């Protein structure tokens, strides 16, 4: 230790280590290894052991069980048993339990912070000031939801046993994001922490015991990817929640396809960090520090694509480089360090590899000059210059402290570059001009947008992505829905939908037109125009008695491609005002009404009685009115996030291009029941109508033509239902897909949707009663037709 006189010369910070003696004591108590936490106590496992290493020095600090399928089995059993009573508890009783968990976490906040730092490598500043306080906050907030769930979510109930798989970057915080809402909504859970970082989850299990949580409500099974796969595959699990890589998320989507399991995925990102020319540059420089050099850059929502307006590019980069000089990397328990080690040598190798690639591709690497410790998985804060939109370091998620920079000329170009990615998790936008900032926020396709700020989190706001960053939200009201299911879906008629009949282009003679009318050809409807099917074939449409009454176009892949292309171009529908969309929907109803007799006739021709046909047309008009009414009323929220002078706006945004596969029953009513909520929220749709009764839809485009529906907003492709569904499910420009067919088709759709991780809504082959308003219409349809974008707006002068 230098003398006071010496320090007066150097004015160095000196070492400031946080003591870890209490955590070491705890680890010593568990020297023989941890079991799983099942049914309220720690149980031994026959499984092999996994070593847990301290990333700052590579020392082994604990060993945990590498969970076997039989361990998962026991845990799911315990959770299922506990579900019976836990789900029946009053909201108040569940609230008391969640409140107790929050209190106990606060009582052990320093212990948990130090343990997290030793296990994960994040700095003690972050675990102490960010992670652990947010954990407690999450449980407090959700104690409130437990209390209110019955009244705030009328008509919804818990899902059942939830399997939750969390990553290593925010171990205890991700646990809180998973467990708190699940428990609040009345579910029980089996949680698998990440292989690298299982320790705070095990400490949390102790807290569950201390806090008197009923046995089996929370179960923790440690292990690697195979343990996770066993949990995903388990039939007793009703819902899977996963946070992790897009690659694993895709596998889970495929693995759960057709299982009926509810699924939420919070995956990777390559988020833009956009600096406009009127920004407070110093503020944005600090933003970069908090964005990509936070948690060693191992943050899914990190702003890793630095887009700077060309007019200030040089000035900004100069300041950023200067700022990098004062960053400190080292022992994460030292209170004066900005960055610790990466989580594991594997991660370090990955980051090094990508950085090497960046250099080979011509990027210029700038790194903080700070000394790095000789031992441990340390990597210096890094900035790539001379990179382009196609550079690997600009397109691939690095998950390390590396940001790549490029310039843009105009706000328009910034939006284009920002959205030019397969991800859509977050965006950090910097401008002192309200117009520039809000327009950019509206245009960027991301679930979380921070204006003049970055990496802000709170239990009251939803977090989750667009596109291949996953689906579902965590936090806030929107997050609760991931752990609830609508009663009407749970109790919907169990009548099974039939597999579709095979269609042939070989047609028979139709019944002659009785009144000598001119022959009408039912075509496809693409981009506001009638289009002949690309195949050049039609298929026979038969009435209830099996007589051929005409031919409909046999749509194929290329027709779907053209329809999606038309829908993509019709973006004006998504940005039209809600009032404008409502007017168009009302106009559709008006024009359908004036042709009501025609539709009644068509329905009777297909075999319906006149009264049933009249009833269907009447119900359809009413349904269109319902969604016209909702168009400007199903709006967003302002979340009460935990900070002063800050507002968080939760927008309900359309997906963009949606695919809709209609059932056979009630062909007119089911079609409008599915199309109208999607349109009302601003989506452009490609719809496959009832395969057996397509004329209702081909007649309907006459209604659309006269109702000011913009070209391409509503496209209709007739033909073989599941072939068309498969093409739509495979299509990377389709962001969401609703499927009403048989169970096999539902599984196929979910499986194929893994390609771009589109949001899907299938009914597992169940048939709905479209005349029953509790099943056929309602807010659930609107909720499923949009994704929530949270825009964080700190303000103040």
């Amino acid at each position, binding site marked *: 230790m230098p003398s006071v*006189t010496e320090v*007066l010369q*150097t*004015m160095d910070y000196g070492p400031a280590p946080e003591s870890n003696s209490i955590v070491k004591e705890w680890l010593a108590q568990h020297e023989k290894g941890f079991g799983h936490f099942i049914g309220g106590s720690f149980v031994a496992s026959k499984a092999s052991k996994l070593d847990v290493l301290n990333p700052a020095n590579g020392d082994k600090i604990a060993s945990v069980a590498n969970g076997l399928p039989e361990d998962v089995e026991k845990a799911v059993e315990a959770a299922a048993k506990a579900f019976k009573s836990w789900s029946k508890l009053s909201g108040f009783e569940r609230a008391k339990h969640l409140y107790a968990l929050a209190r106990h976490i606060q009582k052990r906040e320093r212990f948990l912070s130090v343990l997290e730092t030793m296990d994960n490598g994040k700095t003690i500043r972050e675990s102490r000031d960010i992670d652990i306080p947010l954990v407690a906050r999450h449980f407090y907030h959700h104690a409130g939801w437990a209390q209110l769930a019955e009244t705030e979510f009328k008509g919804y109930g818990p899902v059942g046993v939830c399997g939750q798989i969390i990553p290593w970057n925010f171990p205890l915080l991700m646990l809180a994001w998973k467990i708190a809402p699940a428990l609040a909504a009345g579910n029980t859970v089996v949680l698998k922490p990440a292989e690298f970082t299982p320790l705070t989850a095990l400490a949390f299990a102790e807290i569950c015991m201390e806090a008197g949580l009923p046995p089996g409500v929370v179960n923790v099974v440690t292990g690697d990817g195979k343990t996770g796969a066993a949990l995903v595959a388990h039939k007793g699990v009703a819902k899977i929640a996963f946070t992790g890589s897009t690659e694993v998320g895709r596998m889970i989507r495929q693995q759960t396809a057709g299982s009926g399991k509810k699924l939420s995925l919070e995956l990777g990102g390559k988020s833009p960090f956009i600096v406009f020319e009127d920004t407070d*540059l110093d503020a944005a420089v600090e933003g970069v520090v908090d964005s990509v050099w936070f948690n060693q850059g191992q943050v899914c929502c990190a702003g890793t694509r630095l887009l700077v307006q060309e007019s200030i590019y040089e000035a900004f980069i100069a300041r950023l480089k200067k700022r990098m000089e004062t960053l400190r990397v080292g022992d994460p328990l030292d209170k004066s360090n900005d960055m610790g080690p990466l989580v594991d040598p594997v991660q370090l190798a990955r980051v090094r590899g990508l950085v090497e690639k960046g250099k080979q591709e011509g990027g210029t690497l700038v790194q903080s000059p700070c000394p790095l410790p000789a031992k441990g998985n340390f990597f210096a804060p890094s900035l790539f210059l001379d990179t382009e939109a196609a550079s690997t370091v600009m397109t691939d998620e690095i998950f390390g402290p590396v940001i790549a920079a490029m310039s843009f000329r105009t706000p328009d170009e910034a939006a284009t570059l920002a959205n030019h990615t397969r991800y859509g998790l977050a965006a950090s936008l910097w401008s002192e001009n309200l117009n520039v900032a809000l327009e950019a926020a509206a245009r960027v396709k991301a679930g979380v947008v921070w204006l003049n700020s970055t990496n802000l989190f709170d239990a009251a706001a939803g977090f989750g992505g667009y596109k291949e960053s996953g689906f579902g939200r965590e936090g806030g009201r929107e997050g609760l829905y991931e752990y609830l299911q609508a009663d009407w879906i749970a109790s919907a008629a169990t009548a099974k939908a039939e597999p579709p009949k095979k269609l042939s282009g070989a047609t028979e003679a139709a019944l002659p037109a009785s009144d000598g009318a001119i022959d009408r050809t039912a075509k496809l409807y693409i981009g506001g125009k009638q289009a002949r099917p690309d195949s050049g074939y039609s298929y026979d449409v038969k009435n209830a008695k099996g007589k051929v009454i005409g031919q409909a176009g046999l749509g194929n892949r290329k027709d779907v491609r053209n329809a999606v292309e038309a829908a993509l171009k019709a973006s004006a529908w998504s940005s039209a005002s809600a009032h404008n969309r409502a007017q168009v929907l009302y106009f559709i109803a008006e024009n359908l009404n004036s042709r009501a007799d025609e539709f009644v006739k068509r329905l009777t021709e297909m075999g319906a009685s006149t009264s049933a046909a009249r009833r269907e047309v009447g119900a359809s008009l009413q349904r269109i009115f319902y969604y016209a009414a909702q168009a400007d009323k199903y709006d967003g929220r302002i979340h009460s996030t935990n900070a002063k*002078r800050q507002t968080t706006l939760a927008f309900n945004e359309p997906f963009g291009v949606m695919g809709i596969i209609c059932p056979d029953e009630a062909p007119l009513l089911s079609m409008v029941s599915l199309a109208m909520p999607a349109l009302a929220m601003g989506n452009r749709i490609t719809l496959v109508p009832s395969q057996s009764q397509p004329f209702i839809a081909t007649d309907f485009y006459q209604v659309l033509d006269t109702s000011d529906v913009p070209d391409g907003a509503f496209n209709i492709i007739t033909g073989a239902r599941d072939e068309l569904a498969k093409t739509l499910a495979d299509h990377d420009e389709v962001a969401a897909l609703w499927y009403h067919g048989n169970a096999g088709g539902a599984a196929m759709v979910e499986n194929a949707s893994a390609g771009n991780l589109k949001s899907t809504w299938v009914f597992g082959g169940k048939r709905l009663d479209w005349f029953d308003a509790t099943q056929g219409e309602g807010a659930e349809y609107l909720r499923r037709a949009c994704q929530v974008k949270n825009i964080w707006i*700190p303000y*103040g002068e």
Partner: protein
Amino acid sequence: MLHQQAAPSGLGHNSFPRNAGTPLQLEWFENQQVNTSAAERRAASLTTRRSVKKEYQAAWLVKAMQCIDLTTLAGDDTPGRVTRLCAKAKRPLRDDIVEGLGLPEMPHVGAVCVYPTMVSHAVKALKGSGIPVASVATGFPAGLTPLPMRLAEIKYAVEQGAGEIDIVIHRAQVLLQEWNALYDEVAAMREACGPAHMKAILATGDLKTLRNVYKASMVAMQAGSDFIKTSTGKEDVNATLPVSLTMLRALRDYREHTGFNIGFKPAGGLKTAKDAMNWLILMKEEMGRRWLEPDLFRIGASSMLSDIERQLEHFITGRYAALSHHPVA
């Protein structure tokens, strides 16, 4: 014009070329953006990102003490009170503490700061100590007396022996964005200071917005200030970390434009050793090591010194100290 003025020999100056000022350069600040929320976040996290312990902490506290402008600016100041303060300025620590810290000699504070009519008493009391006397001037604290009187007040204080003059700016000129008028007044004050070292008090609590703080800082430096200072201690809001951060960024930008090194002085409301540490960390992170010396950094304070003494005693003895065990200022 002050540009031609000879480098002063007075106390409180450093070896760098003295700020010669520049003609008013509106383009250096007119479009300056300062995002308040971001500045607050940076200020809040700055002091949680660094921690200084043990010998290091003791040394940092000694450094803070050496940067203090030990101040009395009260209506009931008397020659006796000022003399007592000067005694404390010369011997801020007990001998046993100096010895316990292993310091080669008794350190002293940066300066003693008083009203103009008290300057002569302070000069007398500090004779031979090497400690400069700073005087507030220009109608402190409101700065609303007529300009000739404000300039005369500066000259009076300099004649009385003040080596440093803490002037106050005319806040209305900032609130009305009258940059030419502000520049002219401050430049005139700098000229009136002659060889004395000039600290421009912006009274940031009155300016309200960080944008105003940045702009006023820049004009004050362009007009030739040697130091920029946050507050008189009499505004509703005194020195804060976000305000200080904004002034330091202006200071850094001015340095990039001109090459001149300007000093910084937070004042008002800094009372504890913890405050001292926070501001030292701010200086080191934003400006670097060089700005931790009294020729470029001062802390306007009075009660802070006692708290530093107690912390240093605790460092040496491991026991918490009583205020009454240290000589009163």
